[in-house]
């Protein structure tokens, strides 16, 4: 009885997921074409493609990675390897865990106040990337710390007993085995960030901004992004019924993007687990 209930709930969850994916696939696949991917929106966004939104999401994600990965990794290394484990560190860890539960719109407002206004970065790729970076930091830190914890103590002791300094031990005999796990967590966090709308809404995303300038100029400009474009196409457009297929196409591209990022994360984990299996 209990078991069949558990089975039913599981089945229900999977069915909902399958239904959503099927719905988006069946309605979106018809608009997917080379042109849809590589063209910019035309005729008041009733025709054309989503290339600027893909590019915008790409650059914002890149800023996110460059901000969140080093800070997240070094924070995790400090918390796990150097800090004296006491009440303060436990409190900090608790705060970090809690931050991952803060609604994304709060991050949006905070990013707007801090990056856009206070640091005067304006509405831009950089403001949005940094805001999403803050959003992913708790994920990156937590995943990195978990990854460091999986490295056996015997590796650390073995290196220390040979006269390695603490940093040498971490650099040569801990980090190499923790990096795959760190990457996995980071990519999962990034996949979440890439689908977020609220944080970029406040800090730089644009309704229609079809031509991005060259790097690095584009970092200081507004941009289009896939989740926001989807939001516009499905709720704000003046010819909402006409552009519905385009909205589904955008949703499909976004989902494929995020699923492949998750797939990459799983592949990295699997690949390295196999490599270090016999530990």
């Amino acid at each position, binding site marked *: 009885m209990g078991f069949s209930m558990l089975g039913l709930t599981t089945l229900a969850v999977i069915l909902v997921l399958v239904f959503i994916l099927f719905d988006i696939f069946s309605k979106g696949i018809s608009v997917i074409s080379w042109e849809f991917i590589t063209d910019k929106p035309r005729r008041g966004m009733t025709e054309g493609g989503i290339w600027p939104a893909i590019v915008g999401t790409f650059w914002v994600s890149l800023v996110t990675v460059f901000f969140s990965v080093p800070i997240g990794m070094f924070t995790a290394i400090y918390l796990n390897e150097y800090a*004296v*484990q006491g009440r303060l560190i436990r409190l900090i860890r608790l705060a970090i865990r809690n931050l991952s539960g803060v609604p994304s719109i709060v991050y949006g407002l905070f990013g707007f106040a801090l990056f856009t206004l206070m640091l005067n970065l304006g509405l831009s790729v950089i403001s949005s990337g940094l805001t999403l970076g803050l959003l992913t930091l708790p994920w990156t830190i937590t995943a990195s710390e978990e990854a460091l914890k999986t490295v*056996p103590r*015997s*590796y*650390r*002791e*073995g*290196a*220390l*007993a*040979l*006269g*390695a*300094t603490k940093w*040498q031990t971490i650099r*040569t*005999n801990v980090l190499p*085995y923790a990096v795959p796990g760190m990457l996995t967590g980071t990519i999962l966090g990034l996949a979440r960030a890439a689908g977020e709308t609220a944080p970029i809404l406040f800090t730089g995303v644009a309704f229609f901004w079809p031509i991005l300038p060259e790097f690095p100029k584009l970092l200081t400009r507004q941009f289009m992004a896939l989740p926001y474009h989807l939001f516009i196409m499905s709720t704000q457009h003046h010819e909402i019924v006409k552009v519905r297929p385009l909205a589904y196409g955008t949703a499909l591209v976004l989902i494929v993007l995020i699923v492949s990022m998750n797939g990459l994360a799983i592949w990295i984990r699997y690949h390295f687990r196999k*490599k*270090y299996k*016999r*530990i």
Partner: protein
Amino acid sequence: MPDFKITTRNFHFYYGKFKALNDISMDIETNRVTALIGPSGCGKSTFLRSLNRMNDIIPDTRVEGSIVLDNQEIYDRNVDVVDLRRRIGMVFQKSNPFPKTILENVAYGLRINGERDKGRIIRRVEQSLRDAALWDEVKDRLDDSAMDLSGGQQQRLCIARALAVQPEVLLMDEPASALDPIATQKIEELIFDLKKMYTIVIVTHNMQQAARVSDYTAFFYLGELVEFGETDQIFTNPAKKKTEDYVTGRFG
């Protein structure tokens, strides 16, 4: 007058409030094998790990008293722990090869000490593997993963890795406890050869092993050093009743 490599005087060790070692005083002779025996939790491993300050990495631990290595107080404030651990090598109970090649495992200690010369590294790796009686078994597959070696080979690899940095003292924490009799015998023969060049301190659960390989034996019980003397005397004519009960297998 024997030459002592390490002298310990009134050494105490605490994990937090728990006193794990009480007032240990003993001398470890140069180029001899000293065995530490006693039941689980008696402090013998704690004492061994105090000798190269491996216990430093355990939070909330504290020491009192003195351990002197060649006239140098090792718990002195200005002692470089990294340098100390280069001089006092350690082999662990569970063999812990790194997930690298056989060559890179043995070369690890050289590389972190700044050795860059390939030729010198190769020569030292070969010598260390020969000293650890492993060379003939691995010379044709130095680039294979160390994880592919058998348990006994892995443990000898860890010994080779420790020897590569040319320590003066070798600490062994139950090096053969996870090995089969043949692999154990190889390790014991190896210990016999190695004491020509190194001062060896070995923790063991196995009384026969202590009797076979060591020159001196220290019997620990509940954090105290009950008796310390020549191995022959400890096993054939112990001065304390407790020692006799333990070495004859009446408890432990």
